[in-house]
């Protein structure tokens, strides 16, 4: 079965899996966000325990040419700690909601990580030299007689083992009353936005004590609240444009050139609802859980509970493409509502050339759609297929009455195993898929 990527037929194969194999998973180890940097050489994950783990792509080794470079741990650090807001008697979880890399500006790497309330700018840098030689101490650390100093020694730098340091550079706090769901770095490289349920703020990367509120949808009376902001992103090329999605399934595009406050949108994307499929769950499942611009900036993709839609920024009244992710769940919405799964926030991502998209599902399944051929595929991230270079077999869920061989019935899907976060390498066919506490990395194998 062919894979999905810009026409070239290939198969996805297993590359690596990170994380413990144990059956009982510690809550803190559950991965809550995955993100490649701009070059794809680094891959960052955040987890519910407030930790950030960064993997680095190792260069291909010459003696084992069949092995493509692997991602190995580069740096691990505690980004956020649990806190308590004493004024509001509110616990602030340490869970990392989002990680966003900054464009590389010097030899060090920078990323923004955020929990519900506080955004932090981290610097990840390497050090391979160490200063040696003191005046008042010997090499072994013994103090010298300060009155026997006959000459001054200037420290010399000696090579040492590579050390990777992560240091917090800025802390952007106290600007969000509600939970932060998105952060997005602007293409002007000096500002970024952060969105919570009701507001979007614009920050300068160098200024922590001030941010500008650019969107505020909080009604004067909270009882009139009918929708919340679910995600927001800056346009990849135009520094004045950003979009935000709402729980009502709509997307608003705002232009910061028009006014300092963007409460009035310039474009409003909404697909008219099909009255025949209207049900009690319509509004819940139409809520948008993620919005992503294509790399080209021409399109954006939104994920709702059952589908992924691709919108052309020039057409507001309907999406240009709609892909069903797991339509077979439409009949299960009632039980998914009861076990709260209907509120799961699935993310979605583009491949480097915008020709394919990927998003997650249940039972550790994830879906890919080729935009040119309109072909789609369901793959599974599982330990069973995690042998080196093992090709991933496409999975099928039986939708009719009769289950064919190799098919899985809807009823036997495991709704506790969900793939919410995925990331696609910006250039290559390398994908990172977070399945609970495990991070799977898959690569293409060209036939």
């Amino acid at each position: 079965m062919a894979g999905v990527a810009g026409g070239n037929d290939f198969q996805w194969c297993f590359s690596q899996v990170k994380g413990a194999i144990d059956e009982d998973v510690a809550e803190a180890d559950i991965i809550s966000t995955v993100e490649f940097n701009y070059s794809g050489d680094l891959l960052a994950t955040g987890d519910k325990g407030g930790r950030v783990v960064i993997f680095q792509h190792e260069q291909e080794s010459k003696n084992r040419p069949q092995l493509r470079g692997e991602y190995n741990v580069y740096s691990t650090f505690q980004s956020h700690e649990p806190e308590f807001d004493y004024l509001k008697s509110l616990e602030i979880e340490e869970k990392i909601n989002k990680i966003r890399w900054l464009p590389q500006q010097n030899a060090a790497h920078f990323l923004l990580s955020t929990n519900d309330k506080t955004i932090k700018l981290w610097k990840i840098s390497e050090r391979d030299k160490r200063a040696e030689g003191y005046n008042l101490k010997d090499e072994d650390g013994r103090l010298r007689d300060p009155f026997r100093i006959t000459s001054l020694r200037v420290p010399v730098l000696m090579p040492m083992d590579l050390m990777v340091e992560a240091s917090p550079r800025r802390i952007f706090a106290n600007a969000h009353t509600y939970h932060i769901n998105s952060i997005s770095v602007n293409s002007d490289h000096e500002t970024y936005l952060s969105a919570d349920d009701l507001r979007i703020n614009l920050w300068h990367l160098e200024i922590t004590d001030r941010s500008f509120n650019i969107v505020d949808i909080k009604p004067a009376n909270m009882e009139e609240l009918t929708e919340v902001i679910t995600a927001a992103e800056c346009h990849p090329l135009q520094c004045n444009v950003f979009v935000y999605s709402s729980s009502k399934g709509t997307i608003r595009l705002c232009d910061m050139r028009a006014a300092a406050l963007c409460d009035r949108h310039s474009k409003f994307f909404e697909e008219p609802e099909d009255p025949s499929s209207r049900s009690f769950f319509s509004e819940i499942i139409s809520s948008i859980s993620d919005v992503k611009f294509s790399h080209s900036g021409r399109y954006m993709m939104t994920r709702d509970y059952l589908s992924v839609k691709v919108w052309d920024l020039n057409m507001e009244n309907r999406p240009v493409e709609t892909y069903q992710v797991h339509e077979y769940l439409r009949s299960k919405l009632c039980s998914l509502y009861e076990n709260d799964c209907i509120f799961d926030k699935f993310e979605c991502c583009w491949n480097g050339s915008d020709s394919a998209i990927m998003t997650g599902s249940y039972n550790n399944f994830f879906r890919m759609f080729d935009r040119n051929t309109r072909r789609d595929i369901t793959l599974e991230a599982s330990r069973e297929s995690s042998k080196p270079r093992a090709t991933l077999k496409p999975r099928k869920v039986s939708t009719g009455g009769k289950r064919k061989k190799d098919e899985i019935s809807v009823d036997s899907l495991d709704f506790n195993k969900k793939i919410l976060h995925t990331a696609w390498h910006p250039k290559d066919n390398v994908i990172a898929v977070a399945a609970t506490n495990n991070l799977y990395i898959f690569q293409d194998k060209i036939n």
Partner: protein
Amino acid sequence: RQLRRNGGGGADGDDSLYPIAVLIDELRNEDVQLRLNSIKKLSTIALALGVERTRTELLPFLTDTIYDEDEVLLALAEQLGNFTMLVGGPEYVHCLLPPLESLATVEETVVRDKAVESLRKISQEHSPVDLEVHFEPLVKRLASGDWFTSRTSACGLFSVCYPRVSSTVKAEIRQHFRTLCSDDTPMVRRAAASKLGEFAKVLELDYVKSDIISLFTALASDEQDSVRLLAVEACVSIATLLPQEDLESLVMPTLRQAAEDKSWRVRYMVADKFSETFVSLQMYLCFNCIHSVLTIWLSDLCLLCPVSEQELVSDTNQHVKSALASVIMGLSTILGKDNTIEHLLPLFLAQLKDECPEVRLNIISNLDCVNEVIGIRQLSQSLLPAIVELAEDAKWRVRLAIIEYMPLLAGQLGVEFFDEKLNTLCMAWLIDHVYAIREAATCNLMKLVEKFGAEWAQNTIVPKVLGMANDPNYLHRMTTLFCINALSEACGQDITTKQMLPVVLKMSNDQVANVRFNVAKSLQKIGPVLDSNALQTEVKPVLEKLATDTDMDVKYFAQEAISGKHFTLINVNKLKMAIIKSEMHFNLLVFTVLVLA
């Protein structure tokens, strides 16, 4: 050991090295404060090491300390700018380039900027040969660096080496600058745009016309508005460099385009730089040109265009209008009397009626410019309603702001007009319900008296102020006292003794203790203005009576006044300080309102 130290007999050690040794070791101390301290004494270390070891050991070590905290790096970058003598003078100054080069690539803008500043400084100490051999290659390295931090730093260095290098190198530098102006990252384009004006100044005129103008045009139409708005700034210096006949064709189209930009930030910048730009253009520019820009732009801002009423309420325009209001007045001096009356006066009048108080305030606060050109009388009929409205604005800060302009307005409008129209306002403020307003109104009276003289005060102000002493509201009675405190010096001994003092003394019987102790305070304040006879016969008995008051505070202040007979100029000075402070506060306020409104 102690003995030895005191004895100073260091046979086998050198005591004087110890403090230096500590400083060197603390360059690597875990405590940032100690590291910072050592870096700040880097010159001491270098002096002890001598020029040779500074060059061969200290500088290589410092080159690699870029892992440190920002504040340490900032201090280091600054120190190195003053290090020329410590490395052996100008012939070795190039030794300082490697550490500054690495500092010029760190991510922290303040550190980079300081490193660039130091590099610019030491570039002057390079001989022309060294500049080409060492400095210029560094600039090229930075300009073609992989990371944008180094490229942004390079932008600030072109202008310092350009004038001092050979023509081939000059051509290279121009090429590098061109490349950076079209860099992929907006950070670098912004840095280039902000240095464009500075670089233009050192370029030969032909290259300004051929190179800079095209770069300016390109940056001013950059896809990122953050770049475009910086290009606008460069316009000012470019305009000064060009001969008259080229301005219209080379600069104006771009400026016009910026004035009409879709982004409010760019228009805001044009508005902000407007007057400055036109001052530099004024000598050459024909009025038609300025007028066409103005018209396009103002219509864009809905100021000349009554059709788009609904846009007037949008917040953007408030920023722009407010900025415009503050600079538009400056234009009148450039345009001359006739043009001002014909073209600007309608605008002033329109803006005086603007719904946004900041806009009105900005017009009024810049009245002096118009006054010089056409005389304020032209405006006075429209001015008055605007002032009255501001004076009664619901926001006390707006009221406060207009009070501050009263002395200025009074000076320009003249006593007659003032008495007729504004005097009542000034008096009304004295009974405002906000203390800050009453306080400012008191200061205002003092300034008015300084302007119009004691006689005017005696006829118009003093009777009204003293009349308030019988007001049923004790706060107003206290205001009388505050006014007396402020006015006594300006009014002089005669008025103070004959008119004010009796009222103050009478108020010592007030039933409200706050009034009584303020009487004591007032007596202390006006004391220096009174003659000694009045002090002895009238003031002293009253103070003594107050000193036995039933109220503790009254007693306290009365005793203060009695004992503090030397209450002289100090208090007056304090008062003046308070006034100066309040003025500064106000300027800050207007500034903040402008920027953040």
